[in-house]
């Protein structure tokens, strides 16, 4: 199940590869509860849908910045497509640079009813290998983002509370406090609570503070460059996300360089045996 999150994450917003059909996703979100939490839950549901687009091809740049300012840069491109069940996605992500990892590809096949399947193709080995990992809140492709940070999380799994409304960087925001309902789920996420500043106009979070169980700030995510992808359904693409890991004093910036939500993605792109094909 963990890898449902992992490469659903890759599917998702930061790389602009989210491919979950909004109509189906709508049904996946639980109904809101009491009136007092309705507002917060409504906001979180809007947030959940806001970055969901059906299919996506994209190229992105990841900058990994160390505590002493040293930068490492990776360029990737990816394709993602929603499965007929409307919940699971298949995703392929390919590394373009640095040169020594060019052609390395991952295939993620999400299964909502069992563990995901994941394969890796290493061009230097000329082989595709199945990959099993216990990844939960672990790093998203070696960045400071975890898969849980990238993946839009189902608000039904959280207790959400509208804390206040305020402006952040001149933008009107809802400030929502969100904590996992289930202890195991919280453990999976790797943090106890999020405080999210969600834009009133497009429902996208512009800042998220992550706290551990001791109320200690462990990470902070910020987003910029919100671009409208589907005016009718109000689906947006976030062009840049930055995550700061306060413990390691390390940060990652993921920038979406190009994206296309209309491209036709063939089936064979998501077959393990096709990973090694040029």
């Amino acid at each position, binding site marked *: 199940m963990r890898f449902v999150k992992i490469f659903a994450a890759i599917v998702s917003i930061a790389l602009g590869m989210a491919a979950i059909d909004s109509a189906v996703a709508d049904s996946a979100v639980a109904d809101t509860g009491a009136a007092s939490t309705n507002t917060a839950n409504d906001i979180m549901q809007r947030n959940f849908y806001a970055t969901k687009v059906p299919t996506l091809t994209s190229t992105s740049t990841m900058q990994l910045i160390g505590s002493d300012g040293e930068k490492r840069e990776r360029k990737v491109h990816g394709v993602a497509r929603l499965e007929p069940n409307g919940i699971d996605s298949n995703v392929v992500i390919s590394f373009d640079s640095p040169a020594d990892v060019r052609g390395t590809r991952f295939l993620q096949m999400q299964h909502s009813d069992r563990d995901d399947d994941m394969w890796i193709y*290493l061009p230097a*080995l000329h*082989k595709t290998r*199945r*990959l099993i*990992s*216990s990844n939960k809140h*672990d790093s998203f492709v070696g960045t400071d983002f975890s898969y849980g940070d990238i993946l839009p999380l189902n608000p039904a799994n959280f207790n959400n509370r509208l804390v206040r409304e305020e402006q952040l960087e001149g933008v009107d925001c809802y400030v929502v406090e969100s904590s996992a309902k289930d202890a195991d789920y919280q453990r999976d996420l790797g943090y106890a609570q999020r405080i999210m500043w969600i834009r009133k106009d497009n429902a996208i979070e512009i800042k998220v503070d992550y706290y551990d169980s*001791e109320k200690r700030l462990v990470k902070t995510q910020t987003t910029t460059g919100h671009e409208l992808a589907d005016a009718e359904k109000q689906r947006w693409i976030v062009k840049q996300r930055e995550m700061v890991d306060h413990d*390691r004093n390390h940060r990652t910036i993921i920038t979406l360089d190009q994206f296309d939500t209309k491209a036709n993605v063939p089936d064979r792109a998501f077959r393990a045996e096709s990973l090694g094909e040029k």
Partner: protein
Amino acid sequence: MLLNDSPWKKYVSFIVRNPYVIIAAIVVVTALLAFQAANIRLDNTRDLWLPSGDRYVETTKEIQHIFGGRDIVVIGIEPLKGDIYQTAVLNKIVRLQDRVARIPEAIRNNTASLASPKIKAITGDEEGMAVQRMLDKLPTTPEEIAALKRRIESNPFYTGALISADKKFAAIVADFKLPPDAQGYTELNNEIAAIIDSERDSSVDIYAGGAPIAFAGVEIYSNTTGGKYFGAAFIIIMAVQFLAFRSVQGMLLPMVTALLSTVWALGLMHAFGFELNSINTTTCILVMAITSGHATQLLKRYYEEFARLVAEGLKSDLRAANRTAIIDSVTRVGTVTIVAGMIGSLTLLSLMLSKIALIRQFGFIAGTGVASGLVIEMTLIPAIRSLLPPPRSSIRPEAENTLLSRLLRTFAAQMASGRAPWILAGSVALILAIGAGTLHLRGDSSIMHYFAPTDPVRVADTAINKALGGTNTIYFLIEGDKPDSMKDPKVLTAMDKLETYLSQQADVGKTQSLAGLVKRMNQSMHADDPAFNAIPDDPLLIAQYLLLYSISGAPGDFDNYVDNDYRRAVVWTFVRSDSTAFAQTLFDHVQPLLKQFPAGVKVRIGGTLADSIAVNDVIVSEKIVNTFQMAAVILVLTSLMLRSLVAGLLILVPVVVIALANFGIMGWLGIPLDMGTAVTASMAISIGADYEIYLLYRFREELAKSGNNIELATERSMQTSGKAVIFVALAIAGGYAALFTSDFTFYSRLATAVCMTMLVSAFSALVLLRAMILVFKPRFIFGAANSIKNSEAGVVV
């Protein structure tokens, strides 16, 4: 200079006439300095122990900066029955990991144990590779425990680091970063101890080891017992003063000097921006002992003058006798007191040139303390003395019929009756025999040896050292000339060869590096076939393995092994032996392996053992340099003062002998040169020079007074300054002797070294120097005696 001391008379007359002015001035200065002293901070930074600028030390710092590991604490857990594969024991590991990582000073992502998120098991099969946390969910069933066993056993990378080879010992290795204003490790030690205590029960032993624990141990000993030993030293020194003077006043006045000097030294220390390391709290005992000793010399002279004046007819006006005795005593010994004090102070201050901050601190406290004592005894003491009632009876200490007096008289008679050459020859033979011990002298900067073998700090260290790879470290910093250098198969192969060689050495318990991880991944990606437990030849494959691991793991997983841009990597080597000789030999033997790294790749060495080598080298080499520096100070000042190079040399030779004997005794007694004992040589030289100057002056004075009657002059100088030398030596040795009762080995070593040093320096002044003078009859004494006698400087010698 010597012959015209009338300025002294004017000076001291002023003090006697205006005692309240002087006392008020000293009170003001003392109050200001006491305020400074009260604000002094304890600074137990570990860098104070290490020589600045040393290549090993700098490399260690650089490695710790890049890869962490500066303040590592190893918490070892050992089930009393069975191995660690028990749910209850594993649960303790999980809880310890969790609680230790929550300590505010903990670097969370650098806290490693089987239960740590960053510790992953890499396993492979026909289909592919799995990277999973070693211990994620607590195993409760036999199947889950068996699965954990398989994961641990298929990843030997962590055996010896986080789990012992016999699986009966596991460790939580936690890295900490103390806030800049932290005064030491005691607080951290207490936090760790509280966690350990809550987990320790009848089923497990839990130990904590590592540098922070050891340094906390030093702090705890120093802070909890420092005051006690200072108090004990104070009482012992006071008792010696009473023995010397048989008078409460005679006992108290030197102690006033001693106490104020200590306050002044600490105040000056803070005013000049120094802080106090716990280990240097014992230096206050030295300041107290030396300054009370100097005061003793002056006070003894006062009593002599007082007795003389009373005998010469001032018995009816004891107050006048008191005032005149003060003036005469200061006038007669003012110059020698200043010179001896200056030499004592300057020789100790010359330690400020040390590369080791701890030794610089020692030099500053001791040097300024002696200088402060000099100021106080030349100002406050005469002022107070002039206000105190005169001694009730005339005392002639030098004429007392005590055992000591009789012994000194007999010795002086032997010396003056032509036996001096034999005594000199015997002394030289003795010194040579003692000095031969220098050949056995060794440096030992292992902080663990500051603790007794039964001390909990050392017991824990021994247990951890035995079970795991070792608590001593050698780090090899591999530096490429461009990013990604560490992905080069040639570099990784050279690292692997280095690790292979290191792991074959008897005392090396564990090595870890990026090479080991790459080999493990290669094997996993080839269905765990042991044939692929090797560095791949293809640099692209290595890069792709590393990417694969980073995708499966966390970005911080490799932080301890390679830097962000793969330009620098480290080979961690854990060693069970703390022998620097072993480390030095190892460094020599690995040189050919280091040359196998490709061009453009540099290898530097650091680690605790490398640091120890650096400290030992500096302690030994600085001892030699510092001995020369001190010798130069003594030669220049005494030659100028006595206007004779021969005089300077005559004082210098016994001083060098003292240094030699000091090292020799340490060699014979097996006391190593460490941070405490290394400075005893400086103490010996400083105090030894002091004794000799007093004795030489007094002998010259008595020779002049007695009309070149060598026997009388010898006896009188022995009965006066000689006796004072013995009391001062007794006071210093006695002050330090209190440390013998300590369980802290550092203290008992120091006490032994200081007591031996006092014995040698007193012997050198009383016997060797005296014999040399009588044998060589230098003109500056025997020739000058006549001129002094005939000079108009009546109040001089």
